[in-house]
């Protein structure tokens, strides 16, 4: 117990040291605020622009949530298709792997051309980033169903549907949860990249506008909020993933 407190205190102390170094360094060397604003200036700016930040956060959150949801639904469906249909395994699977190798950042301008400056292009980008980890981990999960349990279900005369729901899905869930944990922060990156390339709002848009108009403190504020958003979403998945408690066994 004291060890835990000690370790927490050490980490906290290190953070405080970093803050002092940043704040003190900026003041001491009189760094121009448009290059690197002091922490206190960033904090002040975050408070001042809170309404604006909140509004843009909601936009980005909506994009991420939709993109992630589509990635989950379509990713799981595609994984199941590849797993259960041999033809899909021979045709779709190599195609999906090849597609995964395309740098998705490079796709962003094309996506904006196709889907416009609105919600659709950002949801598509978030989807593209989150999609592949979900397909791959779900596929791995489905394949990891223990052979002896499959045989047991067959011996019980289980219908394919019963085997799927009672055996394959629970067996695949732990791996799927791991995939979702990777995919969620990627979905945030996807949405931000989409906003960078072409948008009217969202935190990525705010970062771009603020930097362009030398409001560097506001850029940092937006970056801070993006980080917080990404962390919060990750821990949401982490918490939901605990429902699949048998992943440790």
């Amino acid at each position, binding site marked *: 117990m004291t060890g835990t407190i000690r370790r927490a205190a050490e980490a906290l102390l290190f953070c405080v040291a970093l803050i002092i170094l940043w704040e003190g360094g900026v003041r001491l060397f009189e760094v121009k605020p448009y290059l690197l604003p002091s922490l206190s200036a960033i904090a002040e700016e975050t408070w001042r622009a809170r309404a604006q930040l909140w509004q843009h956060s909601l936009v980005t959150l909506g994009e991420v949530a939709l993109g992630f949801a589509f990635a989950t639904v379509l990713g799981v469906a595609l994984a199941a298709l590849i797993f259960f249909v041999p033809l899909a395994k021979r045709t779709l699977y190599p195609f999906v792997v090849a597609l995964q190798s395309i740098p998705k950042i490079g796709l962003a301008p094309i996506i904006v051309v196709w889907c416009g400056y609105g919600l659709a292009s950002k949801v598509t980008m978030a989807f593209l980033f989150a999609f592949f980890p979900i397909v791959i981990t779900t596929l791995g999960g489905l394949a990891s169903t223990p052979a002896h*349990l499959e045989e047991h279900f067959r011996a019980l005369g289980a219908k394919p549907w*019963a085997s799927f729901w009672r055996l394959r899905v629970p067996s695949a869930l732990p791996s799927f949860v791991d995939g979702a944990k990777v995919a969620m922060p990627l979905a945030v990156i996807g949405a931000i990249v989409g906003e960078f390339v072409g948008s009217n709002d969202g935190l990525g848009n705010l970062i771009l506008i603020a930097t362009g108009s030398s409001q560097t403190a506001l850029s940092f504020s937006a970056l801070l909020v993006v980080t917080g958003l990404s962390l919060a979403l990750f821990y949401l998945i982490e918490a939901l993933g605990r429902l699949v408690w048998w992943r440790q*066994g």
Partner: protein
Amino acid sequence: MVAAGLKPVADLAPVAIAIDGVTKRFGGLTALENVTADINDREFVSILGPSGCGKSTLLRILAGLVGCEEGGIDIFGGRVSGPRDDVGVVFQTSNLLPWLNIEANLRLGLEIRRGKAVARAADIGPMVETLGLKGFEKHFPHQLSGGMRHRVAIGQTLLCDPRVLLMDEPFGALDALTRDRLNMELLRIWQRDAKTVVLITHSIAEAVLLSDRVLVMSERPGRVIRDVTIDLPRPRDPSKTRESAAFGEYVVELSRLMGVG
């Protein structure tokens, strides 16, 4: 002494399982060659053989999980073409679902075979009692010892009340004490519920202790080389039965047949 090839005492009992010239090949490898045997209704038969002799393959064919190249199997007069509802299988591994508690695992067989309603309505109390699982209903498999998990797996199969019980070395991984206890529980249930039991084992002592008849298989390709009737009084008891002279003679005889004596 032990008369080889002698038909079992209960000559009038109908044949439950007729194994008729079963040959099984895996590519160029012949696992089973012309295996023929009859197992009577309510009989306890062990299939004994060295590892790799195809006895587990034979059980899978009996269970309708794999087919065979030649011959076939009739259970209660019907040709086996797939898993049957009147046949229950207990495998070497305990086969519990880690995400279901013991009660749900016990009901799983019933649920898959007869549906949710039957499974929910089933009274599992007596089975829980018999198998010594009382108080563990809400536990999960990982919280139980290996012996208890095996008991749950056996209970799951028994709750389906199959007429034929196929067991593939269900006690192989257990310590001697637990094994003795489960052997006795199995004998009690078999006698009470009048089932036909086929037990795959490589333990000579276990085969003699439990069975009416022991089918001895050869090394690959597996064939039934001897059909030994175990004429020991019932009810049997691990400590008493094993001390009897007749028990020792059967063990020696079977050891010799398996080439280990």
